[in-house]
């Protein structure tokens, strides 16, 4: 598979080939191979300690792998020192230089490249404009708010027009509202820059919002690489199904006739998986529908209301299916529809799952 056709003057593809890195007996990365397309916004998503930051640091050249190689375009970079890789990088805590002004910070990569002062000045001003900080050049770093610091870090990482930009949880220090705003801004910036962006986060929502593709990492292994919707709708692994969305996994029985749910054949539009392996049903709270009586056209997931939690825009209802199984359903909080008919705690609730919303994953719930 080659990405040379995608290569252009603004971005480069990244080839990661069977990369491994261990600390003692623990694999931080285990035989990771990944092809990142030129101009793509790819997110490395995983829980803390999964190896996603190690992978990013290896691409940046700060972490030396035990084996494997890294290519930027056609060029092997495995042994290249970080400063020769031509990357832009944004760090978790911004890592701005506190003794320099905003302009000096943004100009640093230009200075080390020996650019003339007048060229620097235009570039710095353009980069600050790009992140909506025009005219902030003379400010000191400690005079800036968290969001502004974030923008300076972005400007500094892109001012020299790198073809690849790496970001290590850049929004984690911001509050929720600003974070959501910056997600949209970053996405827009990516479209303007057209550079390849590798983004690390443990926040699945952030990953789903921003990415062209998401690479889910767990225990140093690449579990699934897919577009956000594909990942959400078709997880190919128990870990992914569990990690993405507020899922509950329900063990399915696998008989000769096919998969069965609570004794009845599972209705699904996708073809039933072949072979007798165990499968799980992925139940997402927003996919369940409530009705006043049992609806036989749907997969039946009715049970007893255990608790309901008011969450502002919606109500989350915990439903006891019996046999120690608990699922949850999210119902809109608008008065006209469901909230006034949510049964009380202890009363039965009729829930169904449409055949087209059925998601199954190979594996057994422990």
């Amino acid at each position, binding site marked *: *598979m080659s990405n040379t056709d995608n290569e252009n003057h603004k971005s480069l593809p990244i080839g990661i*080939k*069977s990369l*491994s890195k261990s600390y003692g007996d623990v694999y931080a990365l285990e035989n990771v*191979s990944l*092809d990142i397309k030129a101009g793509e916004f790819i997110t490395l998503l995983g829980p803390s300690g999964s190896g996603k930051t190690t992978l990013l640091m290896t691409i940046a050249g700060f972490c*030396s*792998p*035990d*084996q*494997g*190689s890294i290519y930027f375009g056609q060029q092997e970079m*495995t*042994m290249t020192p970080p400063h020769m890789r031509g990357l832009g990088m944004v760090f978790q805590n911004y890592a701005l230089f506190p003794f320099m002004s905003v302009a000096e910070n943004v100009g640093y990569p230009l200075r080390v490249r020996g650019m003339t002062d007048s060229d620097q000045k235009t570039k710095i001003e353009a980069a600050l404009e790009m992140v909506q900080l025009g005219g902030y050049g003379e400010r000191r770093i400690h005079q800036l708010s968290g969001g502004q610091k974030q923008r300076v870090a972005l400007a500094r990482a892109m001012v020299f027009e790198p073809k690849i930009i790496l970001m290590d949880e850049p929004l984690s220090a911001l509050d929720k509202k600003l974070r959501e705003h910056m997600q949209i801004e970053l996405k827009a910036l990516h479209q303007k820059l057209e550079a390849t962006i590798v983004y690390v986060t443990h926040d699945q929502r952030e990953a789903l919002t921003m990415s062209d593709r998401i690479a889910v990492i767990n225990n140093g292994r690449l579990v699934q690489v897919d577009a956000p919707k594909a990942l959400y709708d078709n997880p190919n692994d128990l870990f992914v199904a569990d990690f993405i969305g507020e899922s509950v996994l329900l063990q399915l029985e696998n008989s000769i006739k096919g998969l069965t749910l609570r004794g009845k054949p599972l209705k699904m539009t996708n073809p039933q998986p072949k072979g007798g392996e165990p499968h799980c049903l992925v139940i997402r709270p927003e996919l369940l529908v409530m009705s006043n009586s049992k609806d036989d056209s749907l997969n039946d997931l009715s049970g007893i209301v255990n608790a309901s939690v008011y969450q502002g825009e919606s109500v989350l209802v915990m439903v006891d299916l019996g046999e120690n199984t608990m699922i949850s359903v999210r119902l809109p909080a608008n008065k006209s529809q469901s909230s006034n008919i949510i049964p009380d705690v202890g009363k039965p609730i009729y829930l169904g799952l449409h055949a087209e919303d059925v998601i199954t994953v190979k594996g057994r719930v422990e």
Partner: protein
Amino acid sequence: MNIASNNQLEGLNSKELAKARRKEGRLFFNLSLPSLITILIVVFIPVFWLSSLSFFDRAGDFSWENYDRIFQSQLYIKTFIVTLKISFITLFFCILLGYPLCYWLSQLPNRLASILMIFVLLPFWTSILVRTYAWLVILQRNGIINDTLISIGWIDEPLQLAHNLTGSIIGMVHILLPFFILPLFASMRSIDNNFIRAAISLGSTPRGAFWQVFFKMSLPGFFAGTVLVFVLALGTYVTPALLGGGKIQMLAQRIDSTIMLYSNWGAASALGVVLLILAFAVIWIFNRAFGIDKLFMR
């Protein structure tokens, strides 16, 4: 993507990568090498060489006679006793003065405490010789203390304050007290007062909260200060030599005179080995309990 071809590729580069990593690790260790080598040459080698002399008799054969001698001679045993006595008394007064002072400073507003810490740092930065000299001047027969006490009529005859044990201990406490205060104050300052508030809210009395929470959390600094004062006291040379008036002979001076006056290298070396063992036993215990880097945390 072809996994087989990649496996061939990785087999080749893992050695190369490991080599590069080792090279980088060595580079950083090499940066500290000049310092470490200087210390090894100027401190470790001479001290080891000196210590090794204790295991040979005058004919140059291996023997324990130097140790037999120092543990049988009244003179050397007395030196050990005096050294330990002075070190413990010094430590006692450093704790007695240092702990309340640190507690007091830690409860003051940060700015005021930082300003008052200058009073602690000042002696730390001043020459031991100058400070010992100042005490000699203050404590002598016609020094300020005796003059003042006589003029207000408390005493008729000047007190013997310098040139004896009292003078040596006053001088040593003054010199070693900052070594106790600095680590203790650092660890007290890092104690969050919320812990004490929590203890009191859970029904502890303020006095109980102090002992169960504050005192316990100040222990790393307390022991760091204790180890520093005790170890430095064991090896003190200058202060008792000047303020002891020739009557106080601690181990360091005894080692010096055993060589310089009596040329008895074996016995001096054996004394030195005992001194080293005492000092490093204390440090070893501390290193086990808290880690050596806590000794000099600021």
